[in-house]
């Protein structure tokens, strides 16, 4: 059977005959480019979704069609051609390699710097591994332990099949389909993602990491994550793996929703190091993410993020502090180098009484990059005794980069206490000479200074994640001197 050309596919889509059969050919597992209602239906159909899910997607699509791409962020990039993207692609079949010798040496070099074991390197680079590697057995044990506690942790596509009532109840309740342009797009076409449910009173005994999730087929362009912590439960969730990702998809628009019911706590940690483009600013991922969590009474949500990748980042993990005494935290390190642009921050929406939020943002800019913090602290009229503390520190390297801070404060209740501190510093020649004089070369000195600068946030990461994040900072800033 000869393979389908894109035109063939397009033709079939038009005549609605796509529903049958042609997916068996692996090479043609990608939809034709472009987006319309039929494509949305086809995605839903392909995933064998129930009617309510299809309807939900269609509704999102109709909303999206009427929306315009936002342009208020402090980033400049060529607008993606939304009709030039293929919206469904089955898990990529990467070419299997026979040994590490066949792997891109740059990639291996990065693996080495991150201290990733040889076996793990093979797995990540898709080299056929003939012995059972650790992570497989870890994953099995992991699943068993979670099962005993009644914790659900699976791809969201599976959850839609196996736990439709839970997904239907919560999906889109924190980030409605109409929330923003990218969230609407994601809702219409999301490929896969993770679903996690922690039952009442259960403390999840281990860090939940997508890294260990079985059946992970690449993160995909439009990832959807939903985490529900039932009353009195606790979970620490790690997103992303610190291994370098060479995903060439230009546009990424993920949505993450966190729901912390009464007395629950969710810690959500992210390390993002998608391809930032080359030193001249060519290529790289556009990352437009919507992340938001809602806290019921006495609940707590902490976002911790280390952002070193992507050419353009647009991301504001937020907390809606709906319940009384609820707590929201945002700890962020955003590194930009070369021509990267990041506009990132948070929104803390205080609605309940005695709600508290903390924002610690560390921006590091090098090369010709632009790094913006954008944050909103909103205190509603009924939020008696709301408190916020924000600290935004910027570290500059060289004279060609930029750091910007856009704090917004809206206080509608007089009892609110809002504190904002901001500093901007530059890595000084004197600091570098001091380190050099002690035998530390400039590259290492910068890593040391940057790690020191970021310490308050690095400390919030789970231990092993923090170690890798530190190495990642070092790698991201390589070549930023001179």
């Amino acid at each position, binding site marked *: 059977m000869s393979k389908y050309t894109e035109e063939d596919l397009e033709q079939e889509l038009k005549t609605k005959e796509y529903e049958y059969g042609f997916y068996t050919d692996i090479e043609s597992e990608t939809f034709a480019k472009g987006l319309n209602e039929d494509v949305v239906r086809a995605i839903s159909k392909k995933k064998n979704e129930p009617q309510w899910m299809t309807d939900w997607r269609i509704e999102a699509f109709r909303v999206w069609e009427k929306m315009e791409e936002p342009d208020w962020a402090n980033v400049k990039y060529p607008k993606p051609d939304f009709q030039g993207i293929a919206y469904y692609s089955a898990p990529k079949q990467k070419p299997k390699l026979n040994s590490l010798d066949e792997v891109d040496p740059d990639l291996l070099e990065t693996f080495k710097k991150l201290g990733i074991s040889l076996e793990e390197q093979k797995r990540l680079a898709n080299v056929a591994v003939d012995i059972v590697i650790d992570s497989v057995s870890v994953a099995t044990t992991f699943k068993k332990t979670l099962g005993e506690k009644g914790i659900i942790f699976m791809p969201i596509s599976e959850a839609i099949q196996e736990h439709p009532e839970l997904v239907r109840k919560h999906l889109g309740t924190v980030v409605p389909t109409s929330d923003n342009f990218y969230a609407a797009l994601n809702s219409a076409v999301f490929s896969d993602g993770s679903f996690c449910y922690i039952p009442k009173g259960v403390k999840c005994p281990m860090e939940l990491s997508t890294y260990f999730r079985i059946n992970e087929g690449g993160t995909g362009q439009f990832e959807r994550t939903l985490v529900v912590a039932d009353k009195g439960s606790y979970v620490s969730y790690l997103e992303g793996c610190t291994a370098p990702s060479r995903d060439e998809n230009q546009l990424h628009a993920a949505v993450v929703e966190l729901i912390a019911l009464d007395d629950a706590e969710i810690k959500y940690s992210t390390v993002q190091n998608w391809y930032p483009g080359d030193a001249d600013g060519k290529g790289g991922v556009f990352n437009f993410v919507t992340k938001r969590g809602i806290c019921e009474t006495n609940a707590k949500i902490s976002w911790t993020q280390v952002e070193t990748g992507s050419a353009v980042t647009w991301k504001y993990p937020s907390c809606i502090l709906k319940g009384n005494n609820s707590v929201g935290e945002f700890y962020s390190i955003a590194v930009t180098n070369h021509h990267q642009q990041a506009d990132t921050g948070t929104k803390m929406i205080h609605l309940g009484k005695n709600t508290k939020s903390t924002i610690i943002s560390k921006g590091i800019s090098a090369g010709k990059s632009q790094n913006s913090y954008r944050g909103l602290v909103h205190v509603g009229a009924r939020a008696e005794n709301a408190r916020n503390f924000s600290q935004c520190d910027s570290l500059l390297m060289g004279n060609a980069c930029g750091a910007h801070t856009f704090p917004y404060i809206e206080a509608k209740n007089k009892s609110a206490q809002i504190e904002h501190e901001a500093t901007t510093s530059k890595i000084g020649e004197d600091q570098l000479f001091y380190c050099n004089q*002690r*035998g530390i070369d400039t590259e290492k000195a910068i890593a*040391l200074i940057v*790690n*020191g*600068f970021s310490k308050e946030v690095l400390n919030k990461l789970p231990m092993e994640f923090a170690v890798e994040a530190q190495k990642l900072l070092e790698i991201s800033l390589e070549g930023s001197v001179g």
Partner: protein
Amino acid sequence: MLKINNLHASIDDKSILKGLNIEVKAGEIHAIMGPNGAGKSTLANIIAGKEEYEVTDGIIELDGEDISELAPEERAHNGVFLSFQYPVEIPGVSVTNFIKTAINETRKAKGLEDMPAKDMLKMIREKSELLEIDRKFLSRSLNEGFSGGEKKRNEIFQMAMLEPKLAILDETDSGLDIDALRIVANGVNKLKSKDNAVIVITHYQRLLDYIVPDFVHVLHDGKIVKTGDASLALELEAKGYDWIKKELV
């Protein structure tokens, strides 16, 4: 160990060192004294390799090897240590983490493995006792919020940890009260051996009561204009620098 011959150096086209000569042998302590603006700190920074200064003529040899083209970290790896007059702050980096990095980077340059944590800990314990440094001090961010005395003590602590061949103490006595001065000087004396050398740059004779130099040099207008033994420092203290200046005329 250190041999400087006819050294000329300038910064922003302003000539500061104008034909300076000095030779320091292993096991010796040299003091360099002189009025403000004589070029004392410039000399220290040039030996350490600070790039803002331009060496226009002359040679700097360490153990017979010309080091004037080496990067500052390479000079450090070769055993040059500078105790800074104004040590910089590095927020978020603890004293321990900093010295650990410095030691391991130096070892790496020599093709050695990282120092085992156990040995590092033992060494830190010994050296911090030597300088009467409190354990809590070691976990603080480098020089951040340190008093003048703490900063200088920290410099000497690093010197003790790095065990340099040639240590240059740039105005280590400034900002020290008498107790701190004694502790720092004791430290330096205990670290002294027949294999290393110390250059003490100072304004006043005070420090030299504790660290007794074999040679005292007077630096004036970019040159060493007088060299003597420890008694020269006392003479300077009594008579001031004008006496030397007059002698030169």
